């Protein structure tokens, strides 16, 4: 490639970058562009109520301004003490219930119709179960028997995707009716991607249902909308909508990954400490560091430290127990369903030998299997 062409490319790239940055910096004023028939219907409803609200406000403001201008004392206006006993003064108030009821009905009609549509649950082509936990989302594709955890992976404030991007995106096919099931393991959460579906709370012990039918390929962003504790602001959602064939490819690759991981974890292989420590660090960063902090020091008064803690330095059985079964009544979740034997073995090994903890022992996947 000639030097000239290289420069031309660079300039183009910079220009496009600037345009992209400008578009992103543009202030958004309204609900995001809907990407499904249901959210489109809600968007229209929202525009209708906004219009009605604007008309009412214009009437009120005009009426107030006219009144203040016309009947100000400095204009020589004198109070009309017969006004209240005039016909309008006695019966004028009836106008309000009549007019307001009319406005109400004009909103309640379409509102009820759309609500029915929101709450209509037909046979779906695909069911996605979404489980909220402090502070991550677990996605289960019930028809394909795969599941994965998704957490924030961009905390670089100088980047465009700050607090928006995740390690594992949800991939969904377009033009399929998708059932979304919402629940939570610990506290309330709310999985909200405004472009594709209205929100419903994720509640421990409940399964709530919403649905979507995405009609445009693309990447849609959202985040947790129900206060769920310390890292509530750090639970973003990214949904990637792709064509059916692309979706099938993605499912196939996920299933292969799963088979491979299972084989690796359940093989009665004995791992050496170095390999476990390396894996353990990555599991820890992904699942534990949000609370116990990357330094293992926790947050005083809120999340206990693991560094020099009695559990990390004490009996390995107690350590296995708290990781596998959690600690009821606290934010410490049970990890038995979310991590496999190898991952639990690795993370425990890591916790017992990192940050100056020096127990020295190595936990093998087989030990975890026995402890379950």
């Amino acid at each position, binding site marked *: 490639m000639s030097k000239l062409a290289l420069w031309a490319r660079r300039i183009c790239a910079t220009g496009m970058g600037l345009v992209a940055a400008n578009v992103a910096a543009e202030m958004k004023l309204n609900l995001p562009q809907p990407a499904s028939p249901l959210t489109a219907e809600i968007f229209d409803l929202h525009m209708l109520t906004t219009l009605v609200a604007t008309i009412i406000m214009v009437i*009120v403001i005009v009426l107030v301004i006219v*009144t203040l201008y016309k*009947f100000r004392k400095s204009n020589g*206006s004198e109070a009309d003490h017969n006004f209240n006993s005039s016909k309008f003064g006695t019966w004028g108030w009836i106008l309000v219930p009549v007019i307001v009821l009319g406005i109400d009905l004009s909103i309640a009609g379409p509102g009820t119709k759309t609500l029915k549509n929101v709450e209509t649950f037909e046979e779906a082509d695909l069911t996605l179960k979404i489980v909220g936990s402090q502070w991550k989302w677990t996605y289960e594709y019930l028809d394909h028997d795969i599941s994965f955890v998704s957490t924030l992976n961009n905390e670089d404030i100088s980047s465009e995707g*700050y607090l928006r991007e995740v390690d594992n995106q949800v991939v969904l096919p377009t033009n399929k009716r998708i059932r979304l099931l919402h629940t939570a393991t610990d506290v309330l959460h709310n999985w909200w991607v405004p472009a594709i579906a209205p929100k419903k709370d994720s509640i421990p012990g409940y399964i709530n249902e919403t649905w979507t039918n995405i009609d445009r390929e693309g990447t849609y962003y959202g985040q947790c909308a129900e206060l769920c504790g310390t890292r509530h602001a750090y639970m973003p959602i990214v949904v990637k909508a792709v064509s059916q064939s692309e979706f099938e490819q993605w499912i196939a690759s996920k299933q292969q990954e799963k088979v491979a991981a299972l084989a690796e974890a359940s093989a009665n292989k004995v791992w050496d400490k170095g390999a476990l420590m390396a894996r353990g660090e990555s599991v820890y960063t992904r699942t534990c560091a949000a609370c116990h902090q990357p330094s293992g020091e926790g947050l005083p008064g*809120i999340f206990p430290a693991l560094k020099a803690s009695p559990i990390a330095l004490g009996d390995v059985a107690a350590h296995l127990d708290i990781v596998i079964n959690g600690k009821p009544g606290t934010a410490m979740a049970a990890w038995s369903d979310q991590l496999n034997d190898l991952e639990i073995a690795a993370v425990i090994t890591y916790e017992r030998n990192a940050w100056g903890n020096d127990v020295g022992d190595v936990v093998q996947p087989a030990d975890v299997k026995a402890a379950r």
Partner: protein
Amino acid sequence: MTTIAVDHDDHHDHVPTGIKRWLFSTNHKDIGTMYLIFALVMLFLGGGMAMLIRAELFMPGLQLLNPDLYNNLVTNHALIMVFGLVMPAAAGMANWMIPMQIGAPDMALPRLNNMSFWLLPAAAIMLMMSMLAPYFGTGGPVNTGWTLYPPLSIQAGMSMDLAIFTLHIFGISSILASINIVTTILNMRAPGMTLMKMPIFVWAWLMTGFLLILVMPVLAGGVTMLLFDRHFGTSFFDAAGGGDPVLFQHLFWFFGHPEVYVLLLPSIGVLGLIVPTFSRKELFGYKPLVIFMIILTLLGLVVWAHHQYTVGMSLAVTTYFMIGTILISIPIGLMIFNFIFTMWRGSITFETPMLFAIAIIVMFSFAGVTGLMLAVVPADMQYHDTYFVVAHFHYALIPGALFGLYAGVFYWLPKWTGHMYDEKLGKIFFWWTTIGFNLTFFPQHFSGLAGMPRRIIDYSHQFAEFNMISTVGAFVFGLSHILFLYIIIKTVRGGEKAGDMPWEGARTGTPGLEWTLSSPPPFHSFETPPEVK
């Protein structure tokens, strides 16, 4: 307009002095003053927390606070503003004005009155302890928001228990105050003062009193169940034990929605006096206004679940709550209509209380129409828990409750102190605070629609501009209150002498009994009941 009842207070009064006058007070005016001072202190405390919150949200990234402290501030800001500022301030005005407006010597139950006030500082101290407890190694702070939803509220440390006891004490205080006010209104009216002759402010407080007596015990029950879940092994709200996390939300909002009207109604009552006074013309449609106030009270009791449209209720239940909520626009619409037509064909002047009243009519209407938008369930499933809601309820509660109280302070300060306030400063304060308020909260409608959830300490770059404007506005709004404090202190210390009826417009607008007393009024309001014709 001079008076009848001035001169007979000096002979048989034993006005206690010093600390005893306040600590053991059974006098409705002294207790009213203490309520108002308490509210003013809480205004600065809760406002300071709001400033910290807005400062943190000035731009993306963590600058000042950590997430738990942030969530704790969000919670305490709300609790202080609701239970520490608006309710005590409204109760203070009720204490001062209701006996004077209905022609009574004092409240019906003066010792109860003393107790209901002195519970408040105790509750405030308990709330401060709740804020400080986490720094003594007693677990995490209350980080749930003022709604205290479980299971998150089960996770917090001792801080939560202290917050629960705080709510108990605030609750007892307001139940006692309400019992007192309702009893006073029903039993202590001067001869001839029939219910339908009462000033609209008294009617508003009668409704408020009933609402508080009805719903406060439900909150107390709900948070007590929370306490039991936390410490005594019950599972009212724990699904794993057969309980239901959503049950708490129903209990909370059964209290929480009427609570909104508890905050609004006294200010509507104040407006019902100020608008006629400065329009020099009687209130338009007194009777329908009273009837629709009663309807509002009853409707307010049966629409609570519109705060939780997203919890997954059945279609029929959700539809019911939607229709009920939309219908609230009728009584609210009537209030706005009646206030505007009180001004119509009047002779309007623009003193500070009237400026506030006019601003309230417009801005509260705005909260009304965004409320109408929020009432529609499918749309609410997009707005719920976003800044759109934050903007909506601040428009409802700051103009609807707080500005009404400011208007009341300016309206009655001359009566209470015997001095006119500085009108020029009053007007500066009005414009300063109104512009600051709108600058803070108007942009939040847009950041909410764009997708910014409530109660987040940090946000992505897409919301940066609106948050920056909001924070600037918040500091403009917050700083204006230093002027407010200065005006009050200046008026208390001296100023132009106020007549018995400081507002000449009241003669034709609201010719009430309170104007027949001197300014400041005698220690015991009416020792011989006045005759009302």
